[in-house]
């Protein structure tokens, strides 16, 4: 891959490292942490939606699985935090595995509906199984001890999440440029062409679905420990839409787009606190306008504009 693609990563590392010294208080640090958490989920989702071209409207379900798996296993069974996270990711992966084969036989709208249905069923189960999950009111989550580090306090969490973000971006960039990544993009460009060169499109879609589910689950677990409290909303339809909005606004099939999308849309509700209650309307508007005028999302459209300028066009 061209060296320039990794340039963005260095920029992000620099920003992440310097940010705490620039931010005025803990509130902003919290915001940055949430942005990063979302960004990693979106990275995974973008692989599925942007690169592989498979619409998924139920992704928050996997976030919820991760969150509740950690929550339940650590608080009610006393499991170690890292192991619980791993278990959550495995569970999410298994569900994705089982659901993927039939789901990906579908196209377009049907695919959207199937993923939607999956997400909603997960969130309903989480909301209804009161005894285990604490029902619609949610449940508290104990502190996380990550490889010997006590994750408490805004500062520790910030660095932990930033490291995870940077690693995820790096890994995603690598993946896109690898033969696997090429096959994925080919699948999106033309399923028939991909097949003809030997890509088993069924297996690839499955693999990327499971991968995205695992990312979401791990981040769900981290979010659970970070916030200290979870409720079934985390797996809800609304959250799924927010995630898809981040992918779409930031840029489909764009690693940096995922980050930009997550940053912008995590910031949005904060920016709108003055206009109480308008967040839903604005999210909807943003979604529509971006899709109509910038269907490829911010980052790819900007990149295109820049490329044209450079060519003197």
């Amino acid at each position, binding site marked *: 891959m061209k060296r320039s693609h990794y340039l963005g990563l260095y920029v992000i590392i620099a920003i992440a490292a310097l940010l705490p010294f620039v931010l005025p208080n803990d509130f902003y640090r919290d915001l940055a942490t949430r942005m990063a958490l979302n960004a990693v989920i979106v990275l995974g989702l973008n692989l599925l*939606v942007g690169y592989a*071209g498979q*619409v998924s*409207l139920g992704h928050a379900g996997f976030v919820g699985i991760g969150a509740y798996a950690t929550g339940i296993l650590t608080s009610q069974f006393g499991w170690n935090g890292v192991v619980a996270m791993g278990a959550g990711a495995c569970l999410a992966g298994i569900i994705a595995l089982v659901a993927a084969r*039939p*789901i990906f*036989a*579908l*196209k*377009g*709208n*049907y695919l*959207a*509906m*199937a993923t*939607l*249905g*999956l997400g*909603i*069923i997960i969130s*309903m*189960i989480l909301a*209804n199984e009161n005894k285990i999950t604490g029902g619609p009111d949610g449940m508290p989550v104990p502190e996380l001890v990550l490889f010997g580090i006590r994750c408490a306090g805004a500062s520790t969490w910030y660095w932990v999440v930033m490291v995870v973000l940077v690693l995820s971006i790096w890994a995603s960039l690598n993946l896109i440029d690898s033969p696997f990544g090429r096959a994925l993009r080919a699948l999106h460009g033309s399923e*028939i062409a991909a097949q003809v060169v030997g890509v088993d499109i069924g297996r690839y879609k499955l693999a990327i679905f499971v991968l995205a589910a695992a990312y979401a689950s791990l981040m769900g677990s981290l979010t659970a420990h970070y916030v200290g409290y979870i409720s079934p909303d985390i797996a809800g*339809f609304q959250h799924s*839409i927010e995630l*898809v*909005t981040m992918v*779409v606004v930031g840029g*489909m099939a764009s690693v940096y787009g995922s980050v930009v999308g997550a940053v912008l849309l995590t910031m949005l509700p904060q920016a709108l606190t003055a206009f109480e*209650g*308008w*967040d*839903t*309307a*604005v*999210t*909807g*508007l*943003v*979604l*529509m*306008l971006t*899709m*109509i*005028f910038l*269907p490829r999302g911010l980052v790819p459209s900007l990149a295109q504009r820049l490329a044209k300028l450079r060519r003197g066009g």
Partner: protein
Amino acid sequence: MTTGAIYALSAIGFTLIFNASKIVNFAQGEFIMLGGMLTFFFLQIELPLAWAVLLAILLPAVIGTLIQRFAIDLAKGADDVVLVIITIGAATFIRGIIKVWLGKNAHSLPPLLDNAPIEVFGASILPQSLCILAITAVLVVALWYLFGRTMTGKAMLATSFNRTVAQLVGINTGGVQVASFAASAALGALGGVLITPIALTAYDVGIMLGLKAFVAAVVGGLGNGRGAIIGGLLVGISEAMVSGYISSAYKDAIPFILILAILFFKPSGIFGAKSAERV
């Protein structure tokens, strides 16, 4: 059964739009919501019931037209994904505006007829339900006639199969698309007006109702009018049965389990047709 009729109405709406433009309109649910909420609003400002209902059906039709004109038309030729997301965006936007304008509370409406339940074959039915079923039946017949017998209906079907050819034959495809959105919105709104006296209405009922109506449309076969109706009734009845015999907590999950089942076993729905991609 009653809810089934409502789902059926909205499912027909989905079918209309899908038939005219191969788009699935995720904002359909919001039209149902608008029907109920707008009627409530107009009653609040002291409009007579008939006017309130009429406006509550016309306004969504106008909004539907706007969505079609601005959102869908502008994004001409875009991916499926993009169009789906646009309608979701529209839905979210409508929901957001209502949330801000009319608040988050739930409201009800006075029923069309008397409130006392009638005994029929040992089960008690609300007069409102009968109303709904009757109106739905009438509409269904009207639509069947429209699609099967009239030129307009056939024009709509032609547009959905191949826009270019339809244009060549002289069909006003733009008009057909707009009409389909408007009609679909009106149908949804009507459903909303009818169901509100029984179930409440609030700014966020659109999500669930819309999704379930979509399930109904898919179960019956996307694009098939008869299927939409049967699908709607099926979903409604299944919900009621699960709610009564198993557990009412999971009542809402039934439509989604249904849709997953249908999508896995017979994606084209009960009456749907298969489609293939030519190489």
